[in-house]
């Protein structure tokens, strides 16, 4: 396997990782706010903050990691995506800044405020929406290139149903992933009131998720025939995705094995995400950048892979420690520590 292929695979894995943990975080923010509005916050907010407190920074790092990785392995992406996404990415990063700092202000500062919580909840939905522009753009047809100048065609972006269906899918997926995770977390904490509420949220957001996934897929077919056909050739991956979704729904609906249900949701998104990614190959930005054309020099590629492996040896034990101390320590989850 060539280093650029290793690079893109690892980066795609990291993006998947970001998708899952950021969704949990973003969705939790929205649920916390929504619960406060509907006066149910006493049921779930303690649970949410207990999970989020130790991990929020880690979420942010996943994002920067993916970004630095893609710029390192495929420097052309910096030029194209950087030029075109000046506005949407600036918006996303401003929202991320507001979200991160206000979370810390609320959590480590002493005062609870509805404004903080609103910012925290609203940004949780707006960030995935603005970040999803990068995915839409990668399908091609949204970039104007005049000489050396690359810019985004906003009219095309805002009038294209594909971009809106991707935005919609991003938002509902966030809520669905988060809902199923918090259902599992509540069941682990043996917090029955929270469990009931989160289970309802999870069930509620499942249907829009599958409908919007289908819609986005259909619009993709109209926009980028090649990508669509490639994904159709991976029909078995898509089929697996639907199967995992159904297992997860069945488990949650019947109120059993919430942990397994969440794993099924993770696998549902894993298979769909990789079907999408493999179908996209070899393009990183259709039709300007391919994995091969934009790859960095072999020396740099090798150095990055080596640094990555070295880094994992450092990080995996540390992450296991975090999970042991917070996520899977039953006493901590239940609030006894």
């Amino acid at each position: 396997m060539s280093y650029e292929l290793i690079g893109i695979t690892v980066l795609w894995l990291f993006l998947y990782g970001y998708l899952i943990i950021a969704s949990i975080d973003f969705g939790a923010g929205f649920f916390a706010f929504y619960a406060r509005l509907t006066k149910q916050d006493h049921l779930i907010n303690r649970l949410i903050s207990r999970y989020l407190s130790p991990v929020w920074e880690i979420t942010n790092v996943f994002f920067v990691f993916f970004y630095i990785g893609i710029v390192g392995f495929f420097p052309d992406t910096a030029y194209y995506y950087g030029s075109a996404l000046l506005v949407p990415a600036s918006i996303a990063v401003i929202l991320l800044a507001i979200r991160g700092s206000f979370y810390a202000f609320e959590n480590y500062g002493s005062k609870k405020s509805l404004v903080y919580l609103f910012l925290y909840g609203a940004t949780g939905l707006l960030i995935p929406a603005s970040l999803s522009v990068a995915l839409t753009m990668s399908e091609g047809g949204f970039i104007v290139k005049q000489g050396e100048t690359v810019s985004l065609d906003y009219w095309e972006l805002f009038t294209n149903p594909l971009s809106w269906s991707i935005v919609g899918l991003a938002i509902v997926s966030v809520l669905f992933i988060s809902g199923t995770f918090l259902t599992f977390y509540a069941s682990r904490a043996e917090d029955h009131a929270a469990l009931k509420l989160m289970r309802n949220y999870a069930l509620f957001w499942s249907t829009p998720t599958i409908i919007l996934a289908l819609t986005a897929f259909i619009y993709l077919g109209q926009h980028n025939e090649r990508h669509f056909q490639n994904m159709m050739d991976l029909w078995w991956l898509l089929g697996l995705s639907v199967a995992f979704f159904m297992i997860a729904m069945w488990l949650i609906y019947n109120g059993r094995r919430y942990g397994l249900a969440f794993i099924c949701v993770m696998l549902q998104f894993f298979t769909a995400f990789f079907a999408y990614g493999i179908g996209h190959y070899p393009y990183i930005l259709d039709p300007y950048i391919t994995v091969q054309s934009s790859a960095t020099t072999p020396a740099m590629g090798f150095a990055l892979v080596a640094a990555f492996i070295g880094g994992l040896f450092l990080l995996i034990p540390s992450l296991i420690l975090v999970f042991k101390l917070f996520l899977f320590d039953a006493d901590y989850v239940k609030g006894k520590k």
Partner: protein
Amino acid sequence: MEMDTVLWSRLVTGLTLAFHVIFATIGVGIPLMIAIAEFIGIRKKDPHYTLMAKRWARGFVITVAVGVVTGTIISLQLALVWPNFMKMAGNVIALPLFMEVFAFFFEAIFLGIYLYTWDRFKNPYIHWLLTIPIVVGAGMSAVFITTVNGFMNQPEGFVMEAGQFTAVDPVQAMLNTATFSKVFHVLSSAYLTGAILLAGIAAFAMLRRGVKAYHKKALNLMMAVALLFGMLNTLAGDVSAKFLAEHQPEKLAAAEWHFETESGADLILMGWLNAEHEILGALHLPKFLSFLAFGDFNAEVTGLVEFPQEEWPPLLVHYLFDLMAGIGFALVAISLLYFLFKIWKKRNELNKWMLRLIALSTPLAFLGVELGWFYAEVGRQPWIIRGVMRVEEAATTSPTVRTLFFVFLLLYILLGIMCVIVLRRLFNNKPAEVEMEKWLKENPNQTIEKGDPAQ
């Protein structure tokens, strides 16, 4: 029009960096102070020091949050505002950027554990051990990012062929000639500033609420750390100047207003220039520039006229440099004075004027860091990668950056104000004395070291 976009691109980046560097410096400096305080607390069994570590960590995490989000902003802005730079530099200097993320990741994980496990281990040293990955992670983040800045000043580790980088050696690019002096200076100044910040807070608290044992101990500890790193920082500054004299003479010459190449060059302090580039109203220290640059009063120092005028850095950097160096020396002097007063029994080292001076040194230290970075960046003009890529070749062509400047300005004002409000609320409602008393009530078997004037 195009020049305009370049200017706004520089302003956006300068603004973000100026804001980020405050929090980055705190982020690198404070963990070491927390580690020292917790260690002494365990060693001496003195709960005052443990409380210091706790309170500093509590405030620290808020600044970390702002540092994280502004760090995310600057990393994205590199590609958004400087797409051509990132494309080119990505080929050569992506490695340290990549490793920085790992270092930060490592730090973030252990900071999360540290904050939530104060009472989870029986052996207090285990909790203290958690500070090591935090200090190391924060320090390594600074090291990696500084190597990138070193590369921009002293690009190495590649061959240029037809506008493309070939024969790239990422490790050599990272360990370029500029790296050592820069890393040394960045780390020493961050630890110095961290110590001065906490010393300043202790001094300020004593000015407002009188001398308390807690603040007295904090001040004494931090002044000792400040003295150590203040001296190391002076050494680092000297190493940096000698590096510039040898490898980047135009930057040093611009900072020193040294136009003609000559032996036994004078050091020029402050002053101003007339239209003919004649220096007026400055203080001349004979032959000192030669000494500072090469350790020899008669060494030859390259002057600015050796370089084409369109490649001169703005001559304004003279002031940035002089003020930065002046602040560096002042900080060492203040910490020396404190210990002189302490040793010389007749004087009270906690007198009002000394405390005021120490409190004042906190904003000075941050100003020094800012001036130093502005000197480093403005002094590299007109290059973004010295000798390889000019700033205007690197910038985005989108005029939207102008609007973004104001949006980001608003964001930083908001974050800055909120951060101050939250920190004030966090500590004003809970002075250290009150917290200490509460702790003593909960742990009646512990005693505080005797001989302190008050608790």
